């Protein structure tokens, strides 16, 4: 097989060598439990706290307000359920958007079953939440607004600062799922009035199975996982020390040359988009044209279905993803693509290519070349394309 061209960095990323190197000693040399009082334990404790500090610095928070979790989904579940149950007496209304990750949406559905009311804010054709609707939805019962920082499918970045301001004015907690944003965008929780923020290391060249929730002091929140006194009694469980160390190193690397990395990514991204538009007809770009994640490309190829596109790309050694129903085992295509107004049949033909630090210009050009061939081939098999040609 050809060398792999990995363009699914929004799904997950490889662990960078520097990150893995930092982690390694903590598996079998510095393996102590951070809660233990002997030296081997203190070594682990110091490593955990150093990582916490690195993460905190990055988002302009205090180290003691960073709480490690097993990943983005746990952080999302914790923020929502933790705040909901702890503030039930204050109110039972939560506001979120229609394009959140399932980690948020399914948790909201769960909370609805538990008697909470949830408002799902609409987005415009670019995937930006309707701020007027958001403002109007706030009632005396509203305890939490949860709006993602950047969308995982279409890459659109939300007006977080305005949302933070609205939430602050109304005295409502503001949580943001920043799983796709952290490591890729500069974030200052104070400047943006963020009360809680979810992150996951494997989206920025850190390991899988580790993430964190930032919780502003004063936020009333129940633990999701009770037990031992780890994480200041807020999240029980023996710390995943190598994971935590890896997350710290990864976030440090991510912000070291952020602008440089992003400029490169944006250039590659826009090159790919431009070339696709020049060489393939019946395509649409999903998400905001400029206000999007540096590495995110999301394009619909009409008349073909996403899974067969992905399989064909895989045969050429290219890894991407799709919002097609067929790739998720559900009947409907991506809720995000539907929310921005795409018809089902077009949403089925979406392709997300998410670029990362290891992609090159040559790869971009190769991918476009292959896309041209593959799209032509699949369209030649498609009864839908046939009809369009007839009309022409």
């Amino acid at each position, binding site marked *: 097989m050809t060398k792999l061209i990995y363009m699914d960095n929004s799904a997950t990323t490889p662990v960078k060598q520097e990150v893995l190197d930092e982690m390694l000693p903590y598996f079998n040399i510095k393996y102590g439990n951070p809660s233990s009082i002997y030296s081997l334990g203190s070594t682990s404790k110091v490593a955990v706290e150093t990582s916490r500090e690195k993460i905190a610095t990055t988002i302009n928070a205090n180290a003691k307000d960073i709480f490690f979790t097993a990943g983005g989904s746990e952080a999302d579940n914790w923020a929502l359920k933790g705040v909901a149950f702890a503030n039930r007496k204050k109110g039972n209304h939560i506001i979120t958007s229609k394009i959140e990750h399932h980690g948020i949406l399914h948790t909201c559905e769960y909370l609805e079953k538990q008697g909470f009311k949830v408002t799902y804010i609409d987005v415009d054709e670019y995937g930006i939440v309707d701020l007027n609707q958001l403002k109007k939805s706030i009632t005396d019962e509203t305890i939490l607004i949860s709006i993602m920082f950047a969308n995982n499918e279409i890459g659109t970045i939300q007006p977080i600062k305005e949302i933070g301001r609205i939430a602050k004015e109304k005295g409502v907690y503001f949580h943001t799922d920043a799983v796709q944003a952290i490591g890729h965008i500069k974030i200052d929780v104070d400047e943006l009035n963020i009360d809680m923020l979810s992150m996951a290391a494997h989206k920025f060249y850190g390991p899988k199975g580790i993430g964190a929730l930032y919780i502003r002091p004063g936020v009333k929140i129940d633990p999701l996982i009770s037990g031992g006194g780890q994480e200041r009694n807020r999240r029980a469980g023996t710390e995943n020390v190598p994971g935590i160390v890896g997350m710290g190193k990864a976030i440090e690397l991510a912000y070291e040359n952020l602008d440089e990395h992003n400029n490169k990514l944006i250039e590659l991204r826009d090159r790919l988009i431009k070339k696709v538009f020049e060489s393939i007809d019946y395509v649409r770009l999903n998400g905001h044209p400029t206000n999007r994640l540096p590495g995110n490309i999301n394009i619909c190829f009409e*008349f*073909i*279905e*996403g*899974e*067969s596109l992905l*399989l064909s790309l895989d*045969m050429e050694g290219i890894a991407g993803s799709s919002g*097609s*129903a*067929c790739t998720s*085992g559900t*009947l409907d*295509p991506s809720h995000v693509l539907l929310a921005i107004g795409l*018809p*089902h*049949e077009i949403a*089925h033909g979406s392709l997300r290519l998410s670029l990362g630090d290891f992609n090159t210009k040559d790869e971009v050009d190769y991918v476009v070349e292959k896309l041209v061939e593959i799209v032509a081939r699949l369209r*030649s*098999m*498609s*009864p*839908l*394309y*046939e009809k369009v040609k007839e009309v022409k």
Partner: protein
Amino acid sequence: MYSEKVMEHFKNPRNVGEIENADGIGEVGNPRCGDIMKMYLKIEDEVIVDVKFKTFGCGSAIASSSMATEMIKGKTIEEAMSITNKAVAKALDGLPPVKMHCSVLAEQAIKSALLDYSKKNNVHIDGLEDFDLTEDPHEH
């Protein structure tokens, strides 16, 4: 996820295309659901002498179409009628459970094309009496 057989048929689908002046044309599926299969039959003396398909859909939909056309090519109408979705899936060395509906679609596409043939030529085909095109293959 897919068997080698599925991937082979996806890579090199047999009988892709259209038949001009086909004797029977069937189209099943719904673009909303992400899959449409269209099948063209050339029938002479109760025998399917040629078959072509066009499919909008996932890998297993394309592979199922390809396999189904192979299975009925050169067969009598009666033989074609006896082909079930399970037979198509089996011939592909199996399909993932969530993809079984693709083989159902293939079976339906054959039947739908035969129904078209039977209507156009006013012939009766055993087993098509209660063929229900509106049945949702995703339920399978």
